[in-house]
């Protein structure tokens, strides 16, 4: 029994759905950001697995794409955490149930 592409894709799918649940269900804004990071990781793992196992004229393109995804994820994390700190400064909470100024 050897490790194949589908094993990695399965791990990526499980990791993505755990991240999806965290991003949907957690009450703390920082927790939601943690779920988004988990989803980024799952997608990156899938890209690297395809880059390793699939036949391609450009075998390195998947790696380059992952490097760009990591870059944009870092920028997104910095901005999202700055927003969380800003919301906390104005409202003394980052509980998303209580941040409902725009609720109808």
């Amino acid at each position, binding site marked *: 029994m050897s490790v194949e592409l589908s*094993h990695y894709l399965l791990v990526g799918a499980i990791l993505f759905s755990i991240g999806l649940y965290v991003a949907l*269900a957690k009450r703390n804004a920082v927790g939601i950001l943690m779920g988004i990071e988990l989803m980024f990781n799952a997608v*990156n793992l899938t890209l690297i697995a395809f880059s390793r196992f699939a036949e391609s004229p450009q075998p390195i393109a998947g790696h380059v794409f992952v490097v760009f995804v990591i870059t944009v*994820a870092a920028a997104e994390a*910095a901005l999202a955490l*700055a927003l969380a700190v800003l919301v*906390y400064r104005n409202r003394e909470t980052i509980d998303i149930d209580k941040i409902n100024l725009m609720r109808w």
Partner: protein
Amino acid sequence: MEDVGSIVAFWVLSVITVGAALMVVAVRNLIHAVLFLILSFIGVAGLYLTLSADFVAIAQILIYAGAISVLILFAVMLTPRAARDNAETFLQVPGLVLAALVAVTMGAIALVTDWSEATSGPMSETAEAIGEALLDKYVLPFEIASVVLLAAMVGAIVLVRED
């Protein structure tokens, strides 16, 4: 991948990664959740190594396990009076159902599809090839990424500046 070592490494790292991600959901303390998230990041870096992606594994350790997790810990520490109980909203059950549906769908696709796998075998070291590709074929996205990082940095500083 036929040798026993890489098979054992894959299963151990998969269990660490998924288990740590499940602990992010389960633990009741937000700080502990961040620590389990770091463990999950390190597990993913190990999985990159089993896929012979050395450069990406090091970048994962440096950026995710190093920088982003420290940023998340900072954000938790900078919100001292916010709730730290890692609780769920009223979306818990719909979120659980949706996540299970996504997992089943994508898992079924991964298992059923007949992926025509390459026989080329593992790559040798990738750092040199990635460097050449970034500065040759992908130089425009590379420059745009630097502008995006600069804009995000300036934006984060302007947002949280006290004046």
